[in-house]
């Protein structure tokens, strides 16, 4: 093993990650708070009502970023799980473990806000729209992951088994999305809810992009706090903790 692996081991060492996560958290948390607040003002006050959906379109500022987080978090979780599985890196497993709960929360948020948006737009809370359906399946994938993790008592085994599941899930998600789109195109007329409008005016688009940024930074901050908790939980007998917790 050459010297160029030093950074990798340093990066994977729990004390280093614990300290680094602590240092980084405020650098994610405050910009997250600022951009979410700015985006709220931009989205609720500055942006003009949509020409078709009126004021109702403003649900997009919480729905779309939640949906984005739910998918992104799964990708982060699977990447961390893969790193943990391949390089047997405990910290990466801890990172994957800290992702799942947050991801499930925001999948639920995207589903509920999608339903609340659907009621005025479709006239009913639930339509088997491909996006909503795919989100529902994603929620089941998260629940399976969390269930498997909590079903296995031995932490090392829970880490590796759930990592395999996360990787299987990440291969499957694009296929599931494709199949659901395909299914929908056969059985239903295209949905009324167009989310990615390329013609969205700047006053609407900028707050949305800010919201995406804010949610992503928020996730990073919360995930780092959870990661520190996971590391402490796993490494509680190590002597470095004495230093770190002083």
């Amino acid at each position, binding site marked *: 093993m050459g010297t160029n692996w030093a950074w990798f081991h340093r990066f994977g060492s729990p004390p280093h990650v614990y300290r680094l996560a602590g240092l980084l958290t405020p650098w994610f948390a405050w910009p997250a708070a600022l951009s979410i607040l700015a985006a709220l003002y931009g989205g609720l006050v500055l942006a003009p009502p949509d020409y078709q959906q009126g004021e109702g379109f403003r649900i997009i500022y919480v729905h779309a970023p939640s949906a984005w987080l739910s998918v992104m978090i799964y990708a982060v979780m699977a990447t961390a799980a893969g790193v943990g599985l391949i390089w047997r890196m405990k910290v990466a497993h801890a990172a994957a473990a800290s992702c799942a709960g947050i991801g499930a929360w925001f999948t639920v948020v995207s589903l509920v806000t999608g339903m609340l948006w659907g009621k005025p737009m479709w006239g009913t809370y639930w339509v088997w729209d491909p996006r909503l359906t795919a989100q529902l399946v994603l929620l089941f994938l998260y629940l399976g992951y969390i269930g498997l993790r909590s079903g296995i008592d031995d932490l090392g085994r829970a880490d590796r088994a759930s990592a395999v599941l996360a990787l299987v899930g990440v291969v499957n998600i694009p296929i599931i999305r494709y199949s659901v789109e395909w299914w929908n195109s056969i059985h239903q007329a295209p949905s009324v809810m167009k989310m990615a409008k390329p013609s969205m005016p700047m006053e609407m688009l900028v707050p949305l992009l800010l919201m995406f940024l804010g949610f992503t930074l928020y996730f990073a901050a919360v995930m780092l706090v959870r990661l520190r908790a996971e590391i402490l939980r796993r490494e509680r007998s190590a002597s470095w903790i004495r230093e770190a*917790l002083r």
Partner: protein
Amino acid sequence: MSEFFAMDGYAAFLWPSYLITFVAIVANIVIALKAHASARAAALRRLEGDPAGTQT
């Protein structure tokens, strides 16, 4: 102001959406901080019981 909160009749759908998102954001912060605090407390208790801090 009341016109802003009425949201042109969409209030019943718009504000609950924002509320549940807000709840999720706050809840996740609380969960994360609590998890860290309890893990920290457990680690400290462990260190007190085992001054060398090397035994499992």
